[in-house]
C-alpha cells in the first residue's frame, strides 16, 4: 500500500513535466499536422544549455528558463523555416515525420560533439532536499518542477485563449481555409507555433536536467514516452496531452514501485495499445478537424 501511494505521488509529480513537453508537441501537430520527432532532442538540448549556464555562470536552472526558452524558440522557428516549409503540401505529413527524425539525429550529433556522450547531471545544492509527509517522501526539486510546469501550462493556456495570436492559432487549427480567408497568415502561424512548441520543450528541458542524469542519446527514451502521451490524449489536443501524461506517468511509476522497474517502461506501451484498441484516435482526438 505504501509503495502504491508513493508511486502515485511520484507519478503525478513527474506527469507535470511530461505534460509540458507533450503539450508543445501536440500544439505543433494541431497547427501543422506535423509529428515532431525532434521534440525529445529539443528537451535534451535545453537541458544541456541549462547545464552549461549552471556550470559556467552559476545560473540556477529554474532561473535559466527564460534564456533556454528564448534560445529554443529561435531553434524551432529555424527548423520550421529551413526544413519543414520547403516540403510540398501533398506529402508533407509523411515526409515531415522523417525530416523531424533527421533533425533529432542532427541535434543528437551536434550535442555529442559539443558535450561528448558522457552522462551529465546538474548538481544544485538543493538537489537532494526532500520533505517527508505522513511517511511519504516528496523530493523538493520534483515539487518545484511540478509547480513550474503547471505555471507554464497555464501560460500556454492564456496565450492560446486570451491573445490575438492564440485566436489565430485556434482558427487555423479548426479550419485552415477559413482562417486564411479571414486574413490569418498560415505560414507565420506555423513558424511561430513551431517555435512555441520548442519553447515548451525548453522549459521542460531545464527541469528535466535537474531531475535526471542525461546524455545526447537520452532523447530516444523521451520521444517514445512523449509520443505515447500525445497519442493517448489524442493528436492535437492539449488537454488530452495533460491527461495522457497523468495516465502514463502514474501507471509507469506505480508499476515501477509495486512490480518492478523493468516492466515500467513496457507499461506505457501496453496502456497505449489498450486505449487505441478502444478509441483509435486517442482519448480526446478530434475525428475530423483539430480542436485545442
Amino acid at each position, binding site marked *: 500500500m505504501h509503495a502504491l501511494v508513493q508511486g502515485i505521488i511520484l507519478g503525478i509529480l513527474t506527469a507535470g513535466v511530461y505534460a509540458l513537453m507533450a503539450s508543445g508537441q501536440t500544439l505543433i501537430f494541431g497547427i501543422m499536422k506535423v509529428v515532431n520527432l525532434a521534440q525529445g532532442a529539443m528537451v535534451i538540448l535545453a537541458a544541456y544549455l541549462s547545464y552549461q549556464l549552471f556550470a559556467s555562470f552559476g545560473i540556477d536552472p529554474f532561473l535559466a528558463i527564460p534564456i533556454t526558452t528564448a534560445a529554443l524558440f529561435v531553434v524551432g522557428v529555424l527548423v520550421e523555416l529551413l526544413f519543414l516549409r520547403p516540403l510540398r503540401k501533398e506529402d508533407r505529413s509523411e515526409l515531415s515525420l*522523417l525530416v523531424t527524425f533527421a533533425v533529432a*539525429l542532427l541535434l543528437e550529433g551536434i550535442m555529442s560533439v559539443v558535450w561528448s556522450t558522457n552522462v551529465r547531471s546538474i548538481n544544485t545544492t538543493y538537489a537532494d532536499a526532500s520533505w517527508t509527509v505522513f511517511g511519504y517522501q516528496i523530493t523538493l526539486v520534483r515539487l518545484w518542477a511540478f509547480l513550474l510546469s503547471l505555471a507554464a501550462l497555464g501560460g500556454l493556456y492564456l496565450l492560446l485563449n486570451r491573445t490575438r495570436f492564440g485566436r489565430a492559432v485556434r482558427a487555423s487549427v479548426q479550419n485552415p481555409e477559413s482562417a486564411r480567408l479571414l486574413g490569418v497568415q498560415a505560414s507565420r502561424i506555423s513558424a511561430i507555433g513551431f517555435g512555441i512548441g520548442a519553447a515548451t520543450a525548453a522549459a521542460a528541458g531545464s527541469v528535466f536536467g535537474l531531475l535526471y542524469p542525461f546524455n545526447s542519446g537520452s532523447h530516444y*527514451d523521451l520521444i517514445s514516452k512523449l509520443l505515447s502521451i500525445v497519442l493517448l490524449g489524442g493528436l492535437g489536443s492539449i488537454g488530452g496531452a495533460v491527461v495522457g501524461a497523468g495516465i502514463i506517468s502514474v501507471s509507469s511509476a506505480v508499476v515501477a514501485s509495486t512490480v518492478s522497474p523493468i516492466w515500467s517502461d513496457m507499461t506505457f506501451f501496453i496502456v497505449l495499445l489498450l486505449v487505441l484498441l478502444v478509441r483509435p484516435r486517442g482519448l480526446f482526438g478530434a475525428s475530423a478537424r483539430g480542436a485545442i
Partner: protein
Amino acid sequence: MNRLKRMGPTRAVVFFAVLAALPSMNLAHWVLNMLVFTLMYAVMSSAWNLVGGMAGYPSLGHAAFFGIGAYTVGIWFQHHGIHSGYEPFLILPFVGLAAALVGIPVAAISMRTRSDVFAIVTITLLFVVQTLAFNLRSLTGGAQGLSIPAAPFSTATYERPFYDVLLVLLAVAMGLTWGAMRSKIGLSLAAVRADEDKAVGIGVRVQGVKLLAFAVSVGLTAMVGGLWAYYEGFVYPQFAVDPLITIAIVLMTFLGGRGTVWGPVLGAFILELAQQYFAYSLGGSQFYLIAYALVFLVVMLLMPRGIVPSIQERLRMRRRRRAAAAPPAEDSAPPGLPSPHPVTAAAGLGAASGQGGH
C-alpha cells in the same frame, strides 16, 4: 515500348548473375564483408518498401523486428549446438514467421486510423523492444549480450554462405514487390496509399492488404536480423535494436524511390557505400551522425520522390516528346498511364519469387 517492357526481367537476370558471380572473383574479405552488409540493407529496404512505400504507411519500427530476429537466433543457439553450420539458415523462415506473428497485433491496432498513428506506435515499439533487450537479462543477457558460436565455415570462403542466402532473400523480396505490383494486392495497396477512405468506399479490403504487407515486410526484416546475428557472432542490444537501422532503411528507400522494385536496392547500394565511407573517414560516431542526418535532410528536401521515379519521369517525357514529333505508329497506350503488366516475363525474377509465394 515493347523493348522497355522486356528490359525489367533482363535487367534482373543480369543483376543477379553479376551478384552471384562476384564472390568467386577472389575479392578481398573486406569487400565481401561490405557486400554482405549492402545485401542486408537491400533486402530490408525492399521489405520496408512493401509497407512504407507501396501502402504509404511509414513504419519507423523495423529495427525492432531486425532485433527480434537477431535475438531469436541468439536464443536458439543457447539451446542448440552447431553441427554443419547450415541449421541457422534453415530456421530463418520460422524466425520470420515468429516476427510476423508478434507484429500483426500491433499493426492491427495501429493501422486502423491513419499513418501518423502507425508511425508513432511503431517507433514506440522500437524503443520498448530496445528497453526489453537491455532489461530481460535472463533471456537476452542484458548489456552483455549473447554470444553465438562461430560458424564452422573455412576462413577463406567464410562470407560465401551468408552472401548466397542474402542473395536468395533479395530475390524473394524483389520478386514479391514485382509480383505484388502486377496483382490485385499491389493495386489495393496503391489505392490505400492514394486515398484510403475512397478505397474503403469502392470495396478494397484495406485492413487485410495492409496487414499482409506489414507481416511479409517485418518477416523478411527479422530474417535478415537472424542472419546478421549468426554472421557477427554476437547480439548486443545497442546494435541489434538500433534506431539508425530504421533510419538507414527508410533513407535508402526514399533515395532510390519508394513504390518501385529497383529503388530500394539502388538506394541501398549507394548509401551503404557512402555509410562505410563516412564511418571510416569521419572516425568518431558523432560527426558520422551529423553527416548522416544532413544527407537525409538533403535527400528529403531536394529529391523527395527518389532517383528511380525521377528517371522514369524523364524517360516518359522524352518518349512523349518523340511521340509528339513523329506521327503515332503502333503504340496506342497513353504514355502518362502505368502500362499494363507483361505476363511474358517468366525468367529470373518470376522463378525466384515462386519460392516465397505471394
